[in-house]
């Protein structure tokens, strides 16, 4: 009964989405307020219906109802409850339901936080999101129904893929999808603006917090996935350039470009067509990623479904959504007009250069991901493009991008001069060159790649320090008051940039100084790596809920002092008879000690791999900083003030650009923002 309620809710949700995707948009074109007004209740109804379907599926999993095919293929009676719930998105059909669910969450969020938007704009935005929802709901109901009954019912389920039985599974996919799908908001804003012909700085300002929010989720989602791969796959790697990873990385790159491009469009009115194209691009790449993962055109460790009907459906959907929006772009963009003029040396130019580099990077990832497919389509055979390609392409693209990151925030809008920039950044440059030359020698050895990576990381650090000092200079008020006078969005930028520096530092150090050994160990044997002694104390068998495990123990000491104990595991998931490794990791700020068990050898010996990973945690710490920066930027008061009323808000924004004005009038602004936040 419950699965049928879920199924029925999905059908109703499709009908509501059809209304949401058509009536408000037509209403906006005709200026019919009643039709436009339908958007908000429809968005809410859609959310309620999809949430009902979602809860029904979760309940079906929790209650172990193996008469539903999807449940029988993705869970098992011995699977712990939290994984039975997470198994909702463990397979193809359920991931689509999660996709639709999250899309409806974003749609409701837009309907709630869009009171300040003009009616036609809001109707168009919600309508476009409704149309996307139609595609996904249809896809589910036609070829990927998670509620389909299995006749006769299975006695027990085939279990969730053991790779996915990890706490990471509970958080990583929802986070990633929040990011992916979140770009649909920026996309809908762009399409609505193209439809209405209203591409101005107000549009850019409305889009900004939504885009940044999606970007924050995507950043955290990718970070979580990378961290998960690190401890779950047992290779000590944190990024594999796998097709599915690339599918999440491409929207991230374009989304990052979009955030910066939106800033220019809002502040200077430039780059309008380019910003719209990026907004379309970010979401198109999210959809393409879904296609690549779900259609089975690419082989990947993440590949789930290979049903050509599904592939064809998504392809048609892609053509309609992406092709349609690009055609709209080609039709409407020429009328957009250019924004303010700027010279070759100006913040606009630096941002544009960074934008182009990020977009090219995304395209080269796309090329690398699709290249095997292209060759195959041309009849040239099936191949894999791996890290050698991506590493070769990425370093030359990211080097200038990271270098420009140091200059961009310091350069003036419209017109800056090189000698002045050089004067202001000379210390930052000297510090980073010196660090790049000396630090590697202190750490062990110098190679050009280590030098380059350290130079870029410290270049961003040093120029950020310069930027903050310059911004806080002055003696009129206390330091605290001066800090408060700076917009939160600006602090967000600084923190996100420092996050990039921290990330770069982590990648450079771990790539340059990591070491590893693979040894055969008998109980009592000691292995040596990076100054540490690893004493193998043998392996004990243990039994988990749905697996049996061999748990090894390695006592780690340095100069005779015990430091930690690593407990790598080798698990055998009994239902699918699938072996899994669980690495034993001792994480720390300076380095990780990482061990994983290989195969049992004769006479009780085991093959053991031990890794020393200096500063690997900085990679993820950097990503967390980026996300924090994004959150801080969203919390900027100018986004909240705006809801009060349009005229007042415009005055405030203009003033907040000029620092003095903000210092003079903090009290007035605060009361406004308080009132508004209380209202929200």
């Amino acid at each position: 009964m419950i699965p049928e309620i879920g199924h029925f809710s999905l059908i109703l949700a499709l009908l509501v989405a059809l209304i949401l995707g058509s009536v408000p948009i037509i209403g906006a074109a005709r200026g019919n307020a009643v039709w436009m007004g339908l958007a908000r209740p429809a968005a809410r109804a859609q959310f309620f219906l999809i949430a009902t379907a979602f809860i029904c599926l979760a309940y079906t999993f929790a209650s172990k109802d193996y008469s539903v095919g999807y449940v029988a293929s993705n869970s098992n009676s011995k699977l712990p409850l939290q994984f039975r719930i997470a198994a909702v998105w463990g397979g193809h059909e359920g991931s689509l339901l999660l996709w639709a669910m999250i899309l409806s969450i974003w749609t409701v969020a837009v309907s709630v936080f869009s009171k300040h938007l003009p009616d036609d704009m809001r109707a168009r935005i919600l309508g476009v999101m409704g149309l996307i929802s139609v595609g996904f709901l249809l896809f589910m109901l036609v070829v990927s129904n998670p509620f389909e009954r299995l006749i006769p019912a299975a006695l027990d389920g085939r279990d969730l893929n053991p790779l996915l039985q990890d706490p990471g599974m509970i958080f990583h996919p929802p986070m990633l999808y929040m990011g992916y799908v979140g770009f649909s908001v920026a996309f809908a804003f762009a399409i609505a603006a193209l439809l209405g012909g209203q591409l101005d700085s107000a549009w850019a300002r409305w889009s900004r917090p939504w885009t940044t929010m999606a970007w924050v989720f995507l950043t955290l989602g990718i970070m979580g996935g990378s961290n998960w791969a690190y401890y779950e796959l047992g290779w000590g790697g944190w990024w594999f350039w796998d097709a599915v990873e690339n599918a999440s990385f491409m929207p991230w790159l374009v989304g990052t470009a979009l955030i910066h491009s939106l800033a220019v469009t809002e502040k200077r009115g430039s780059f309008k067509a380019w910003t719209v194209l990026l907004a379309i691009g970010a979401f198109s790449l999210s959809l393409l990623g879904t296609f690549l993962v779900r259609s089975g055109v690419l082989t990947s460790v993440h590949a789930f479904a290979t049903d050509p009907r599904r592939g064809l459906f998504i392809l048609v959907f892609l053509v309609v959504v992406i092709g349609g929006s690009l055609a709209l772009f080609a039709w409407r963009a020429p009328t957009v007009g250019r924004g303010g003029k700027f010279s070759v040396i100006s913040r606009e130019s630096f941002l544009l250069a960074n934008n182009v580099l990020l977009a090219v990077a995304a395209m080269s990832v796309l090329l690398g991901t699709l290249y095997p497919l292209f060759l195959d389509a041309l009849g040239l055979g099936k191949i894999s493009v791996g890290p050698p390609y991506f590493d070769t392409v990425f370093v030359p693209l990211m080097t200038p991008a990271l270098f420009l990151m140091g200059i961009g925030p310091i350069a003036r809008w419209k017109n800056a001069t090189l000698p002045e920039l050089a004067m202001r950044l000379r210390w930052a440059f000297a510090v980073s060159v010196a660090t790049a030359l000396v630090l590697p020698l202190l750490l062990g050895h110098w190679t050009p790649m280590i030098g380059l990576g350290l130079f870029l990381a410290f270049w961003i650090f040093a120029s950020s320090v310069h930027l903050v000092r310059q911004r806080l200079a002055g003696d009129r008020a206390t330091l605290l008051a001066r800090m408060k006078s700076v917009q939160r969005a600006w602090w967000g930028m600084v923190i996100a940039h420092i996050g990039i520096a921290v990330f770069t530092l982590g990648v450079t150090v771990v790539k340059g100084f990591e070491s590893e050994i693979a040894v055969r160990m008998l109980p009592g044997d000691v292995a040596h790596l990076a100054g540490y002694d690893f004493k193998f104390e043998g392996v004990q068998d243990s039994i988990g809920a749905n697996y049996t495990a061999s748990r090894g123990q390695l006592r780690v000491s340095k100069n005779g002092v015990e430091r930690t104990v690593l407990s790598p595991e080798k698990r055998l998931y009994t239902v699918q008879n699938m072996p899994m490794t669980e690495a034993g990791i001792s994480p720390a700020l300076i380095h990780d000690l990482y061990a994983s068990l290989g195969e049992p050898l004769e006479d009780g010996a085991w093959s053991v791999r031990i890794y020393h990973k200096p500063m690997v945690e900085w990679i993820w710490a950097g990503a967390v900083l980026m996300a924090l920066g994004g959150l801080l930027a969203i919390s900027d008061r100018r986004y909240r003030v705006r809801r009060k009323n349009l005229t007042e808000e415009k005055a405030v924004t203009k003033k907040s650009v000029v620092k003095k004005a903000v210092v003079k009038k903090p009290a007035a602004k605060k009361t406004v923002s308080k009132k508004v936040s209380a209202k929200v």
Partner: protein
Amino acid sequence: MKRFLLPLIIFLVMVGFLAVGLHLDPREVPSPLVGKPAPAFDLPLLDQPEKTFSPKQMLGQVWLLNVWASWCVACREEHPLLVALSKAKLVPIYGMDYKDTRAEAQQWLNEGGNPYAANAMDIDGRVGIDYGVYGVPETYVIDKSGVIVYKQIGPITEQVLSNKIMPLVERLQAQ
């Protein structure tokens, strides 16, 4: 107007490829190396770096040279077939580990099983250039006189193995 159409055109070209890609199977391609002697090399072995492997050592035998790498996803697909083939002991399989690290390669073989009589390490991919490797996996059938008779680009499938490679190997062995 024209430059604004560009994204759409690029996208449509890509869709064309994706549409074809949906209905594709790996196909055979003629290689300029077929009919020519296998390029010579002398590379260290994966498990014993002090020893080397060279195609010369194989003169007088029919053998398979399989180019693979631990980072190659398509290699995972063909690996079980290679393992099964090596258990049948019909033809010796030698591996060339392409642009890889020893630790990762060994780990990979530990996980999936080792079908190779020996593995040559082509760490910088130089020998791969001589062989015209433009992606992994690739498999070469080499006859008793050291001439490449067949080249499979992409993973070996059961079909290719039973219809192409094995009949060819049997014919060559009988010569």
